[in-house]
């Protein structure tokens, strides 16, 4: 696995199993050579004990128990709980890797950053798209000038409706926009070394009868003059052969690039379920992301994706909601004022 040869292992715990990514995160924490998986705490003890058993990991009855055993925690809770878990961890001097989005409000995200800064711990955010070799190659090509000036990006992060609390505004902070905008927004910021300046969005709750949006198209202006769109919709039917995907269509003065992050997949025609499924065989992006976080903490470096990155991506999602209500583009500075 990643990080072979490190001399010391980072003691990392997993906070909450509410998020659909928690299973992959638990497997990752168990497998990484540079990580000692200290166990699981969950606000739902039944779910948490079952998960601990399944992953051969220790169950911590109390939050403090897990924090005392850990140097860092990965937070895989509902979005709204990111803040309180981050504040609890930082108060105990424990580093944090938070699932995305960073928080459900700009104020909560800012509070998380401030809490970690005051405590002298690091705050990382889970944006695994940055770990894709294809995306990294694109970043290097852009930085090297090979594509000329980047003028436009059309990003998509469609998915199936995840169910559970993801459609509950109190716990998720919104719907598809909250869930899926931030991956693409972070990738675009990182690839272009630029910031979002303005967001226009059309949103709708059309497919699942939810109180939150399941469809959304964002049209964004970047500070450097390029523009980008993000399709964050939960538009993939349950019969779709895969959960969704992340694509980037990048148009530069000298070239056009298409990235399909999860294109590396076998097609499995499965008579036992009566449908076809895609079985990915590309790099394990979650493992690479957690490894990069752990390596940085162990080496005393800044984590590669920090709370400010998380907040910038969250601002794009918040601006989308504002724009949808106003039926006009919204400046990012209007959120910061």
């Amino acid at each position: 696995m990643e990080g072979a040869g490190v001399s010391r292992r980072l003691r990392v715990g997993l906070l909450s199993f509410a998020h659909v990514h928690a299973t992959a995160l638990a497997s990752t924490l168990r497998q990484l050579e540079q990580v000692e998986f200290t166990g699981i705490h969950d606000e739902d003890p039944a779910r948490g004990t079952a998960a601990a058993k399944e992953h051969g990991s220790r169950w911590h009855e109390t939050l403090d128990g897990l924090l005392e055993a850990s140097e860092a925690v990965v937070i895989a809770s509902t979005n709204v709980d990111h803040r309180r878990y981050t504040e609890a961890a930082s108060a105990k001097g424990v580093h944090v890797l938070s699932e995305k989005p960073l928080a459900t409000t700009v104020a909560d995200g800012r509070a998380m950053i401030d809490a970690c800064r005051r405590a002298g711990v690091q705050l990382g955010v889970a944006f695994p798209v940055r770990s894709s070799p294809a995306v990294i190659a694109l970043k290097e090509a852009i930085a090297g000038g090979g594509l000329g000036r980047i003028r436009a990006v059309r990003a998509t992060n469609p998915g199936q409706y995840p169910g559970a609390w993801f459609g509950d505004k109190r716990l998720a902070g919104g719907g598809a926009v909250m869930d899926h905008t931030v991956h693409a927004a972070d990738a675009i910021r990182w690839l272009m070394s630029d910031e979002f300046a303005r967001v226009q969005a059309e949103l709708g709750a059309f497919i699942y009868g939810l109180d939150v949006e399941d469809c959304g198209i964002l049209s964004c202006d970047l500070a450097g003059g390029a523009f980008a769109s993000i399709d964050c919709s939960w538009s993939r039917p349950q019969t779709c052969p895969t959960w969704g995907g992340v694509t980037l269509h990048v148009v530069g003065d000298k070239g056009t690039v298409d990235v399909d992050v999860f294109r590396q997949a076998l097609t499995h025609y499965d008579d036992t379920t009566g449908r076809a499924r895609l079985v990915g065989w590309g790099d394990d992006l979650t493992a690479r992301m957690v490894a990069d976080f752990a390596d940085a903490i162990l080496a005393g470096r800044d984590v590669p994706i920090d709370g400010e990155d998380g907040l910038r991506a969250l601002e794009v999602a918040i601006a989308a909601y504002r724009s949808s209500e106003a039926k006009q583009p919204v400046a990012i500075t209007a959120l910061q004022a």
Partner: protein
Amino acid sequence: MALRVGILGAGFAGAMHARSALGLEDVRVMAVAALPLDQAAALAKECGARVATAEQICTADDIDLVVVATPTHLHAEYATAAARAGKHVFCEKPIARTREQAEEMVRACDAAGVTLAVGHVVRYFPEYRRAKRLLDDGTLGRPAIATLVRGNFSVGSAREWYLDAAKSGGVVLDLMLHDLDTVRWWFGEPSRVYARRFTGSGGLEYALATIRYDDRPIVQIESSWAEHSGFRTGFELRGDRGMLVHDSRDASPLTVQSPAGREGPAMMATPALSESPYRSQLRDLFARIRRGERPLVDGHEGLRSLALGLAVIESADSGTVIEWKAPA
């Protein structure tokens, strides 16, 4: 009695329509015009037609229908002249460069009692027709979100007038207009439009538009003159009961390779069909004219799609959301 056709323009569209007409029964291509005139010679010879000026074709006694396939900014002048001489007009899309020009064409054709048809050929592409059927019969449920993409290499590198927005309207009136017309055909009239666009050197141009319907669906259209490997189309159409996906790059039953590599003619992505959509378009139009029926896409309909394209340009230029009201 044969329908006698004159062709204005010997570029991509003129040649396509001339060749499409040639294969039809009871149709004769009589004359071909181009600027400069000698560029019409090869196509005229292929069609067994004479070379003539556009002015001559618009007034010739032996021509019943004029195909206007000139650069966009010249459509109105010739279409109007042909109508005044009592000829039916089939005009390549967009109907015209400006709304005023389009309105003048509609008025002239209505006054002369001749047919004005606009070449929104996507309405004859079977993949788009099949999608329309699945929408109309409820198979997809209520449409929620649709994405349509259309790209080509920089056409202006081959045809300079495309690079002059005052003549062509750029990528929005060239490529996006197909999808704007398709969206109107599929879903009806939208309520508002927002778009971003850039123009680069070497004929690069790229636009993204979001088209919002009063309730639903949300539509995104991507139109690119930066698709350097050549022409492509695609769409994703999600209703509350299912989703349709089309990608022309995965739709050809025929793949040709050569030692020349990827440098090949444009439009190779069109799936091989027993009859091309361009020929289907003319076959249907000519049959309707003979039966005295209105064309599938008449001048009023072409004008509405043009106006939507102009609203996209207005939004892209101003950075504001444009409320959409279709012309009558």
